[in-house]
């Protein structure tokens, strides 16, 4: 069990109630963000992203495969998250934990609106591109949702697909000529936690450990909300939610800019 000394809890909560944070940030301020792309040459797209000391590596591997029967003319997107035991003393090896499944599914929910899956179809009902997105959490210092989303977006942006064609009912891949992954736009995710009376952006490790409630909001460059997830054992008021949504709208352009310039 994870016992946060009550003294830490009181300390952080008091600070936040006074509009301050343990690391001196404003309530709506991100830690330093670092993005490196194309770090794995064997992957079609990859990135390593840091928010504070949280660190996520994403690799994207395309594979030709059969589409799902109920969506024969769109490609397949699979997002998988692994919280490696190296990232935190409490993470265990083995089957994916609830937290890592939630992380992968929420990240997936956001980027699903971004990847142009229709353009990943090669022949309806027979061959489509399947995009495997693997999140490797290598260092956990809070706020994995935003870190992982930024990492996936950065990796998607530099993903190159070989050109595939159907010749006599067989798929032929031309590794020589590649194309950029078709994207509809871009997005970013902002995660807030409620501690005491305030809602703060980009929770640190300690803040995340004592959070009352968490809210992640994904917003596209076109200004639509494309993913949302609440977590934590305490409720949020409607006003908390609307305030977080409006802060997220003001923060997303900077995040998107960071990915663009990486």
């Amino acid at each position, binding site marked *: 069990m994870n016992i946060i000394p009550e003294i830490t809890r009181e300390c952080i909560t008091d600070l936040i109630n006074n509009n301050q944070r343990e690391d001196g940030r404003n309530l709506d301020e991100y830690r330093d963000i670092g993005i490196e792309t194309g770090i794995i040459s064997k992957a079609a797209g990859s990135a390593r992203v840091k928010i504070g000391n949280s660190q996520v590596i994403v690799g994207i591997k395309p594979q030709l495969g059969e589409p799902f029967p109920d969506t024969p003319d769109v490609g397949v997107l699979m997002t998988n998250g692994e919280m490696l035991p190296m990232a935190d003393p409490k993470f265990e090896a083995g089957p994916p934990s609830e937290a890592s499944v939630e992380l992968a599914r929420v990240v997936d929910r956001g980027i699903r609106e971004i990847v142009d899956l229709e353009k990943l179809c090669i022949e309806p009902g027979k061959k489509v591109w399947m995009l495997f997105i693997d999140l490797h959490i290598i260092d956990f210092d809070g706020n994995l949702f935003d870190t992982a989303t930024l990492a996936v977006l950065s990796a998607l942006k530099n993903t190159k697909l070989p050109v595939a064609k159907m010749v006599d009912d067989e798929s032929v891949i031309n590794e020589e000529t590649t194309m950029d992954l078709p994207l509809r736009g871009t997005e970013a995710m902002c995660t807030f936690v409620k501690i005491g009376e305030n809602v703060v952006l980009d929770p640190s490790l300690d803040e995340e450990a004592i959070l009352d409630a968490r809210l992640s909001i994904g917003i596209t460059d076109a200004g639509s909300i*494309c*993913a949302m997830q609440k977590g934590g054992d305490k409720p949020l*008021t409607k006003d908390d939610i*609307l305030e977080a949504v409006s802060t997220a709208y003001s923060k997303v352009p900077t995040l998107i800019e960071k990915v663009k310039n990486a």
Partner: protein
Amino acid sequence: MISITKNDKRDDGRKFDEIRPLKIEAGVLERADGSAYLEVGGNKILVAVYGPRESYIRRLLKPNTGVIRCRYNMAPFSVDDRKRPGPDRRSTEISKIAAEALRPSLMLEGFPRSMVDVFIEIIEAEGGTRCAGITAASVALADAGIPMKDLVVGCAAGKVNDEIVLDLSEKEDKEGQADVPIAMMSRTEEITLLQSDGNLSEDEFKKALDLAMEGCRQVNKVQIEALKTKHAQDVESES
């Protein structure tokens, strides 16, 4: 509230702000400490509650409070194509958020080192099972006599054919543009579950949130009726 227009009709004849026919029954299972059965539209959901009890999974227990654990499970025959039995990623996620959605209503501080188990079994699915499951689970928790400060009630709103509508059916969920399931505490109206899938503008999201909260208020009345009916039966059988 959403305005009612002339073409205010959906595929199944409902108005934009109308929930599907809903039925809840409390105390339907013999062995469980508490239980509930819920039908909404084509959904059929059974919930059983055990506890607070000791658990052999020691690492999940807490020294200062009781904990709640949920298992959301879909029967293999509950959907069109047979679902492979056992947990998948979707049900793992729903189990986690359902436990978090119910936790704020429970007063488990008096039960340290113990666990409340909530089993949500989807017998038949027709859209909106997570909200319906949470609604039924809260009734089952009350039926189990677990100290609670409020009922948790779930309902979804979404965007279908560019309209914000309440309580999406399976068809609307599949063909719709967005889905916003929520759960809230019935008295304080604090939000305990919130998700959003699909694309919504900020205004559409606000509208969907308001509409879903209105849906929750309607569903809550049925929850309360179910508990009253069960209580009346209990009193009668004792006298």
